[in-house]
């Protein structure tokens, strides 16, 4: 099944087993990558041994995903050498990586949901052919060989869309194996799986390992690293910090290397103490969103700033959606000044004083075809009688004032937002929400994709808002940002708020500790 047992390169490698080079399947040295002004990788070294499960560990922005993208051929490196199976290879497109024997299973599925499992395993030109076209029986037989090997519950004839997420992932793994992959890259494979599904995936990876397959496994969850990995490589700021046997590490040491600090006593802080504070403006009780958020409770007082930390997919964004009312919860309540908000009644929530700056501002922030004025006034007037007329002169004056206040550069308040630069569009989104005179401002990733100047401007505006008594609930994947902006930080893990930390005492290491599932 695995090409490793038959390839001549492998055979020659085996004869020199005593040399240290031979037991490494892949090694990368001095890899650099720049994206415009961002130096994502600044000299990464990585050695993967044959037949091991190797984990890449690093915080957001450590360069982990860039490295994975280089190995899977989606991105070509600017500098550095990559040796695979004893020979230097040039990656740069996915087909070449696949041909070399490197297959990737990412978080986003690459399956065609309408097709059968067999067709997905042998997707594209890889079906068995004969003179009259595709030999479906032979194709099915070949798919079955791989599929049965994985011990799957479903038939190869089932449609992929009928499979649960873990089984779909199995199809992707089966495809990789059927392509004679010798190195499997699993990028956060467990993020959408339940505990038992994770366990059976681990079983599978172990059994593949016993057959000689090498795996690179990325996960942010500490317990998963210890359960599965043989060795780890820790990245920070685009550089390799160190690599070693997992047995030599404990959670504390991994976090220390990842963020360059140790978890402190604040990590002992209890859960949900924020909810006990006196007279909060916003109070969320036991809010649940199916599949995303479980039993979240929190409170935000006037002028207070509360942060939501956690990995991508931990439920931060979904919690904000549910608080604002755009995502229907299946339990729990949201109260503003003690009055319960009705989910889905967004203009009512806005009228009561809730504002939401979404994370996906490029797609969900503005109606680009409409004018600056119309966009600025949209939220404020969403409760007005629909057949009444806007006072356009007054609106224009207000728009000019807001533009001055927020530093929006536009030719006139009557130009379409599409004519504005990206940074100015971001400011329009913020201005739109600030002029609805909110009492609570919800923000998701407030500085994602903005330059350093705009970032500073946004921080200044948030500080002003707080000074005016506006409560802030902000979700961010940048821990430094949360530590700078917030009084209190709630950490989410797998949809639950697992910790509530006082910013005065908390460190980046503490946040990482809880975000990765530490207790």
């Amino acid at each position, binding site marked *: 099944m695995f090409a490793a047992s038959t390839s001549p390169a492998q055979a020659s490698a085996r004869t020199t087993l005593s040399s240290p080079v031979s037991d490494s399947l892949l090694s990368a040295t001095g890899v650099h990558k720049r994206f415009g002004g961002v130096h994502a990788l600044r000299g990464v070294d990585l050695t993967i041994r044959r037949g091991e499960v190797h984990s890449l560990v690093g915080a957001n922005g450590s360069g982990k995903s860039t490295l994975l993208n280089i190995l899977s051929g989606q991105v070509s490196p600017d500098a550095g050498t990559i040796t695979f199976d004893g020979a230097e290879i040039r990656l740069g497109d996915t087909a070449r990586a696949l041909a070399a024997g490197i297959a990737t299973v990412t978080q986003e599925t690459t399956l065609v949901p309408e097709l059968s499992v067999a067709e997905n395993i042998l997707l594209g030109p890889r079906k068995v052919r004969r003179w009259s076209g595709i030999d479906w029986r032979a194709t099915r037989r070949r798919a079955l060989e791989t599929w049965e090997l994985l011990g799957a519950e479903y038939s190869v004839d089932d449609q992929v869309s009928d499979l649960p997420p873990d089984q779909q992932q199995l199809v992707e793994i089966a495809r990789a194996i059927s392509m004679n992959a010798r190195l499997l890259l699993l990028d956060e494979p467990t993020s959408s799986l339940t505990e038992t599904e994770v366990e059976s995936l681990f079983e599978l990876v172990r059994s593949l390992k016993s057959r000689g397959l090498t795996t690179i496994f990325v996960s942010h969850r500490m317990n998963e690293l210890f359960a599965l990995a043989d060795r780890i490589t820790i990245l920070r700021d685009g550089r390799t910090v160190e690599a070693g046997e997992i047995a030599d590490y404990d959670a504390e040491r991994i976090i220390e290397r990842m963020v360059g600090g140790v978890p402190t006593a604040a990590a002992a802080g209890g859960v949900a103490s924020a909810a006990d504070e006196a007279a909060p403006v916003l109070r969320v009780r036991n809010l649940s969103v199916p599949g995303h958020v479980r039993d979240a409770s929190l409170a935000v007082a006037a002028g207070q700033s509360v942060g939501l930390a956690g990995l991508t997919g931990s439920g931060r964004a979904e919690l904000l959606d549910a608080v*604002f009312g*755009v995502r229907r919860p299946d339990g729990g309540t949201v109260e503003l000044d003690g009055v319960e908000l009705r989910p889905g009644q*967004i*203009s009512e*929530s*806005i009228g009561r004083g809730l504002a*939401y700056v*979404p994370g*996906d501002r490029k*797609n*969900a*922030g*503005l*109606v*680009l*075809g*409409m*004018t600056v004025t*119309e966009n600025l006034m*949209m*939220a404020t*007037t*969403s*409760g*007005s*009688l*629909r*057949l*009444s*007329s*806007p006072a356009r002169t007054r609106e224009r004056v207000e728009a*000019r004032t807001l*533009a*001055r206040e927020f*530093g*929006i*550069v*536009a*030719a*006139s*308040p*009557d*130009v*379409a937002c599409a004519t504005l630069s990206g940074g100015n569009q971001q400011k329009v989104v913020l201005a*739109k929400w600030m002029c609805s005179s909110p009492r609570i401002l919800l923000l998701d990733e407030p500085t994602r994709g903005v330059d350093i100047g705009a970032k500073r401007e946004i921080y200044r505006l948030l500080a002003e808002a707080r000074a005016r008594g506006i409560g802030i609930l902000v979700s961010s994947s940048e821990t430094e940002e949360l530590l700078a902006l917030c009084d209190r930080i709630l950490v989410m893990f797998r949809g639950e708020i697992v910790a509530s930390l006082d910013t005065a005492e908390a460190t980046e290491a503490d946040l990482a500790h809880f975000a990765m599932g530490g207790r």
Partner: protein
Amino acid sequence: MTGVAEAQAQAEPLARRGARLRNWSANNQFVGVLGLLVCLFVAFSFIEPRFFSAANMRVMLTGVGILWMISLGLTVVMLTGGFDLSLGSMLGLSGFVFVGFYVKLGLPALLALVLTVIVGAILGGAINGFLIGKVGLPFLVVTIGTLSLFQGITFLVSNGQTTSLTSSLLDTIGFGTKLGVPVTVWIMIGTLIVMMFVLRRTYFGRDVYATGGNPKAARLAGVNVTRTLIAAYAIAGGLVALAGVLQNAFISAASPAGGGTIIFDATAAVLLGGTVLGGGVGGVGGTVVGVLFLGVLQNGLSLAGLASAWQQVISGVIVILAVLSQQLQRQRRRA
């Protein structure tokens, strides 16, 4: 606007007017077609002496009356990013809804007209609008279904027979004049003004543009997207019902064959007028330019004695060219 604002303060009136004009032409992409319309108009006036006469203008304008109403309704729907294929068959059905109120129930003609418009709005809003806006079904699927549904009901209630109608109100609507202008044209102008006001001067109009432009952002800003969609299809239904009564007036009868392929002409008119498939851009002002363009073209070509097959070929080519030039204009503006 900060840094620019001071510099602008001096040059304000002229610069601002320039910006407004540019902005106006960006938002009103029918200016190209308007120019074409004027050229066509002048050309026909020279080629064909009968073209530029009061009588012919009356014929031409009332001739596009039905298309005018349907196109206005379709514009609102298309601005929300949708489409309504059922408008053609709803035209035929509305004719018989009027017959039901006027002939069967013996209600006064004016009341029957108002009730017909209300029924049209309910059919559009409660069936198309509800299924698309509330249930979230794709608009093409829904309106293909209702296209067939309305057509079937029309044949059931009419038994496939034309019902002749006599009513002084219908005669006035169809053939009367006020101040030398046909009543039909007054109704067309009135409808246009109301629709322009609703779309450009009310919060609802903004909701329509926001829903078509970016439904996600609109929803987050508190715009009730569902309600906006239901209302848009209801407005289209109401306007088509009015067109149905107009058709009754023109032929002094209700015919089950009414409707037909007029939805394609309406689509051409709306696209010519600069409203885009996908929504958020355009408006009823452009649509009527598109309607008049099609009307002048057809009228002029048939006065020139061209066979109707050639008329169709020429209109088809011109519509494609006009929409193509708009597309290019848009791309250039973006670049």
